[in-house]
């Protein structure tokens, strides 16, 4: 082999092989997917490709939503649902975070509760609704309990995982400076676990919405779940889809809220 690299005329740019594997999410793409899907449905139902018995026309669903809002029925259904979500979800999340942190900190609690949580986690909480009705009555309390119970387990699991993942060297640092135990927990362990807790909260809140609907389908006068159940039993697809749309929007809203909280609380992350 001769050293003639500079003499040869075969000069090519080095092929680029890096890049990719770093998904970013431009805002507009998500919106476009929604619009295209809805437009497709609208076009299909209008052109007759899709019968109105299969899927209702999106514009009709929108009109139904509009009427619902105009008549005030939207609020009479949404208000109790939001209340149930708020109360049940808060109880579940607060209890879950507390228990999760205790599991993360104390050997005895960990040994005692981790198997218990693992046993409770896979139970479909909806199956327990009749039990809750017996315990807490047919009123709001049983719905709160169901939602709280459903958000509790995933929050516990996410929280103790997050506490386990807190950088031990930071805790050693705290001890080496003679910080009080409570300060180590409140100022080092909790903030350090916050990213994991918040991402767990995303999952828990989605589960809370699912359970909200389930609870309202069994004995509730008002609420999005009751509204959907009613529409479903009448095969009123427009109203059914209107209700489902509201639930989706609720999910997006909650997820965005958690996102905003993350942005605010976790600005220190690199």
């Amino acid at each position, binding site marked *: 082999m001769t050293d003639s690299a500079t003499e040869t005329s075969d000069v090519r740019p080095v092929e680029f092989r890096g890049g990719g594997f770093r998904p970013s999410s431009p805002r507009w793409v998500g919106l476009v997917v929604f619009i295209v899907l809805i437009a497709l449905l609208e076009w299909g139902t209008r052109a007759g490709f899709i019968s109105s018995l299969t899927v209702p026309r999106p514009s009709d669903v929108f009109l139904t939503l509009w009427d619902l809002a105009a008549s005030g029925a939207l609020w009479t259904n949404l208000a109790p649902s939001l209340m149930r979500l708020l109360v049940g979800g808060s109880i579940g999340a607060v209890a879950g975070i507390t228990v999760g942190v205790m599991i993360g900190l104390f050997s005895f609690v960990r040994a005692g509760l981790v198997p218990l949580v693992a046993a409770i986690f896979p139970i479909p909480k909806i199956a327990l609704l009749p039990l809750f009705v017996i315990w807490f009555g047919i009123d709001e309390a049983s719905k709160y309990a169901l939602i709280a119970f459903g958000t509790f387990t995933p929050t516990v699991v996410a929280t103790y995982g997050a506490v386990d993942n807190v950088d031990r*060297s*930071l805790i*050693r*640092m705290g*001890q*080496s*400076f*003679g*910080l*009080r135990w409570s*300060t180590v927990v409140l*100022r*080092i362990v909790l*903030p*350090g676990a916050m990213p994991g807790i918040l991402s767990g909260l995303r999952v828990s809140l989605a589960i809370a919405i699912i359970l909200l609907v389930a609870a309202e389908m069994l004995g509730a006068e008002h609420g999005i779940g009751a509204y959907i159940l009613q529409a479903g039993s009448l095969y009123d697809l427009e109203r059914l889809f209107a209700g489902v749309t509201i639930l989706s929007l609720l999910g997006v809203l909650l997820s965005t809220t958690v996102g905003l909280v993350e942005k605010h609380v*976790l600005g*220190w*992350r*690199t």
Partner: protein
Amino acid sequence: MELRLEGVSHRYGDVEVIRNIDLSIPKGRIVCIVGPSGCGKSTLLRFLGGLERPTEGVVSQVGQPPSDSINPLTYVFQDFALLPWRTVEGNISLILSDHGVPTKRANAIIEDVLARTKLSDFRKALPKQLSGGMKQRVAIARALAVNPAVLLMDEPLSALDSQTRELLMDDLVDLWTKSPFTAVYVTHNLAEAVRLGHQVVVLSRRPGAINEVIEIDTPLAERRANDPELERTQQHLWALMRAEAEAADMELIDD
């Protein structure tokens, strides 16, 4: 206040990591501990500050720490151990407020230590905005803020690049010259040991035992990077350690 190790041995299960070490840390001097990797030098440092307990032997402090010392035995860690969600100032104030230092005095202390470590302009910065060298400066400032009787430094410059290391060594020499402090400085870098140590303790490989203790009389401020005297000491240290380091490198790790 002095620190003293007497007959300290340690084992993790069946593995003996430290064997019968006697050592005292004299006041106002920097004692460097060097040794091949895995010789237990960091473990020894954790004994000195009470973060770990040896299986045998006694670690004692001789005399009272100065009354204005907030945390007599204070560490500087290799990985800085800064809370990423707190600013430079917040990292220091957390410790001061937990020890009940009133806000006004805490502010004065923070201002003073940040000035001493050339960080005054970075008071409100978050750790993620700082370079490695700056982060270690913050950690040093935090350690100085509690006015320690003994500074326990665990490879403080090992995570930094060689240029930053030079700069920080100069800063440490400056700090010591202005107000001498007592320190134990664990490192595997012999150049750091001969630049900063009044006394260099050479440990053998696992199980770590004291191989030799070398005194270096040249004042810290007069030590230059290519001083022939220091060069010779460093060569001597390397001659002591070379075979050990080689053997330690070839060892299988089975635990």
